[in-house]
C-alpha cells in the first residue's frame, strides 16, 4: 500500500512537471492515462482506445453524411450499448457462477464510465449540439483522462475539451486546492469507508440469519460506506485534476442530509443523473411533455431502470431501482396532493428508505437479498431478542476488542464528519495552504487509516 502510494506520488509529480513544462500537454496527458491504466491493469488499454477511436470516427461520419446520418448514429449507439450489455452480462455471470472476480474483468476497467461519454458524444453530434472533433488525440485524451477513468465523475466531451485546448498555466492555488481536496478523499476512503467495510461484509456475505433491525442497520452502514468510498474517490479525482488546472464537475452535494428522495437524487451521483436526464429521459419524454404527471412518472421509471442496468444486470439492482421508483412516485403523488410532513420526519424516512433499497444494491444475489429483507417485515423477528449477541457482536464481529474499537471509531468519524460536512467540504476546497488542515488529515490517515489489504473502490466494478 505504502509502496503504491510512493509510486503514485512519483507518477503525479512527474506528470505535473511535464504537463506544465513541455509544450505538449495533450501528449503528456495521453501517456499519463496509458501509464495509469498500465499500472492498474494494462489489459484495459486496448478496449479504451478502440472505443474512443470508434466514437471519434463515427461522429465524423454522422456529421459528414447527408443521407445516412441516422444509420451511422444507430450503428454507433447500438455497438456501444451491445458492448455495455455484454460487459454487464459478463459481470453477472462471473458473480453468479464464481463470485465476483475483479481479475477476470480487468480488460473492462472504467468501461461503464467512458462508454457514457462516447454515447453522449455521438448523440450531441447527431442533434447538432456540437461539431465533431477533428483531432483524434484530443478526443482520446478526454476519454482516457486518468483522474476520472476508474469511477468518474461522468463527463461529456465538451465539458473536457475547454480545459484541454487551453494552454496550461501553473497556479500555486490550484496545486494547494488539489492537495487539500485529495487529502480529504484519502481520509474518507482509508479512515471511514474501509473501516465500515468489515461491518457490511459481516451481514451481507454471511449465511447466518439476522433480525430485521440488524439487517436494516447493515443497510444504513452500507449507505455510509458507499458514500464515503465513492465520494472519497471523487474527492481524490477532483483534487488531482485540480492540480493540473482542470476542474471536474462535482458528483455529490451532501446527499445524506436530503429531506426527500427527489432531493437525494439531485445530490447523489449528480453527474450520472445529469447524463441520464440529458441522454435518456429528455429524448423520450420530449414527445409527451404535455402531461406533467405522465412525463415525470415515465422519466422516473426510464431513468432508474437504465441506472439499474448500468450498475448491473442482476435482479438485485432491478429491485433497488423499483424501490426508488416507488419512493419517487409516492413523493410525486404527495406533492400533487400538497401533503407535507415535518422536516425531522422526512429526513428520517429518506435515510431509512435509501438504506432499505441499498439492502438490494449490496446483496451479492437475490437469495441473500430475500433472506436479509425478509426479517424486516416479520413482527416476531424484527427486534434482536438479545442485543449483545444479535446486534453488537454481529457488527463488532464477535465483540473482540479490536473489532468493537473499529465499530465505535468508524461510527464516531462518520457522524462527526456528516455533522460538519459543509464546513469540512469548504475547507477542502480552500486555495490557501494550511499546515493545520494537512497535518490533521495526514495524522488521522496514518493513525486510523486501513492500509493492509485495502478495499477495492466499490464503483470501480460497475
Amino acid at each position, binding site marked *: 500500500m505504502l509502496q503504491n502510494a510512493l509510486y503514485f506520488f512519483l507518477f503525479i509529480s512527474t506528470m505535473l512537471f511535464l504537463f506544465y513544462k513541455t509544450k505538449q500537454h495533450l501528449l503528456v496527458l495521453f501517456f499519463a492515462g496509458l501509464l495509469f491504466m498500465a499500472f492498474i491493469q494494462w489489459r484495459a488499454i486496448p478496449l479504451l482506445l478502440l472505443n474512443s477511436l470508434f466514437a471519434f470516427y463515427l461522429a465524423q461520419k454522422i456529421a459528414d453524411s447527408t443521407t445516412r446520418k441516422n444509420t451511422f448514429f444507430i450503428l454507433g449507439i447500438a455497438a456501444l450499448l451491445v458492448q455495455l450489455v455484454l460487459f454487464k452480462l459478463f459481470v453477472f455471470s462471473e458473480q453468479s457462477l464464481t463470485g465476483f472476480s475483479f481479475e477476470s474483468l480487468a480488460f473492462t476497467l472504467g468501461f461503464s464510465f467512458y462508454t457514457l461519454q462516447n454515447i453522449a458524444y455521438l448523440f450531441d453530434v447527431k*442533434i447538432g449540439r456540437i461539431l465533431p472533433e477533428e483531432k483524434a488525440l484530443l478526443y482520446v485524451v478526454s476519454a482516457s483522462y486518468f483522474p476520472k477513468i476508474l469511477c468518474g465523475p461522468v463527463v461529456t466531451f465538451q465539458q473536457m475539451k475547454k480545459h484541454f485546448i487551453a494552454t496550461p498555466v501553473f497556479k500555486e492555488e490550484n496545486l494547494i486546492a488539489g492537495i487539500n481536496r485529495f487529502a480529504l478523499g484519502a481520509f474518507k476512503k482509508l479512515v471511514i469507508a474501509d473501516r465500515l467495510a468489515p461491518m457490511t461484509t459481516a451481514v451481507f456475505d454471511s449465511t447466518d440469519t439476522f433480525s430485521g433491525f440488524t439487517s436494516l442497520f447493515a443497510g444504513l452502514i452500507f449507505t455510509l460506506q458507499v458514500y464515503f468510498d465513492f465520494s472519497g474517490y471523487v474527492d481524490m479525482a477532483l483534487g488531482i485534476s485540480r492540480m493540473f488546472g482542470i476542474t471536474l464537475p462535482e458528483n455529490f452535494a451532501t446527499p445524506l442530509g436530503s429531506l426527500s428522495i*427527489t432531493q437525494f437524487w439531485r445530490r447523489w451521483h449528480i453527474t450520472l443523473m445529469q447524463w441520464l436526464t440529458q441522454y435518456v429521459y*429528455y429524448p423520450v419524454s*420530449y414527445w409527451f*411533455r404535455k402531461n406533467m404527471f405522465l412525463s415525470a412518472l415515465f422519466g422516473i421509471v426510464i431513468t432508474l431502470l437504465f441506472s439499474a442496468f448500468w450498475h448491473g444486470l442482476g435482479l438485485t439492482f432491478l429491485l433497488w431501482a423499483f424501490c426508488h421508483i416507488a419512493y419517487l412516485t409516492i413523493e410525486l403523488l404527495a406533492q400533487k396532493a400538497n401533503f407535507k410532513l415535518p422536516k425531522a420526519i422526512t429526513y428520517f424516512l429518506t435515510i431509512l428508505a435509501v438504506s432499505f433499497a441499498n439492502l438490494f444494491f449490496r446483496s451479492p444475489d437475490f437469495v441473500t437479498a430475500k433472506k436479509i429483507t425478509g426479517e424486516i417485515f416479520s413482527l416476531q423477528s424484527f427486534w434482536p431478542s438479545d442485543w449483545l449477541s444479535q446486534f453488537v457482536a454481529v457488527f463488532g464481529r464477535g465483540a473482540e476488542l479490536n473489532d468493537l474499537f473499529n465499530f465505535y471509531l468508524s461510527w464516531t468519524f462518520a457522524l462527526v464528519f456528516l455533522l460538519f460536512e459543509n464546513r469540512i467540504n469548504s475547507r477542502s476546497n480552500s486555495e490557501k495552504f494550511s499546515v493545520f488542515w494537512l497535518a490533521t488529515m495526514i495524522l488521522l490517515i496514518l493513525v486510523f487509516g486501513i492500509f493492509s489489504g485495502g478495499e477495492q473502490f466499490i464503483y470501480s466494478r460497475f
Partner: protein
Amino acid sequence: MERVEILRKIELVITDFFNLKNFVCAESTSAADIEGWNSFSHLPLMSKIEEAFSLRFSFIEITDFNTVGDIVNCIQKKLSGI
C-alpha cells in the same frame, strides 16, 4: 413582440405552473431560483410556454435553455421568423 412583453408572458406561465405568489421573473432567472423547477417539471413547463406563444421548441432548444433569457431569445427569433 418586445422582449419585455415576452418576459411578462413567460412570468405568467411560470407563476401559474408552479402556483407562485408575487413572483417576478428576470432574464437571469433559472431553474435554480424556483422551487419545483427540476428535470421532471422542465419539459411540461416548456410545453405550457409553447401553448402560450403558439409555437414549438425543438428538442435541442428545450434542453439547452439555461435561463429565462435564453427562452426569450428563442421565442423572439421564432416570432420574427428568423
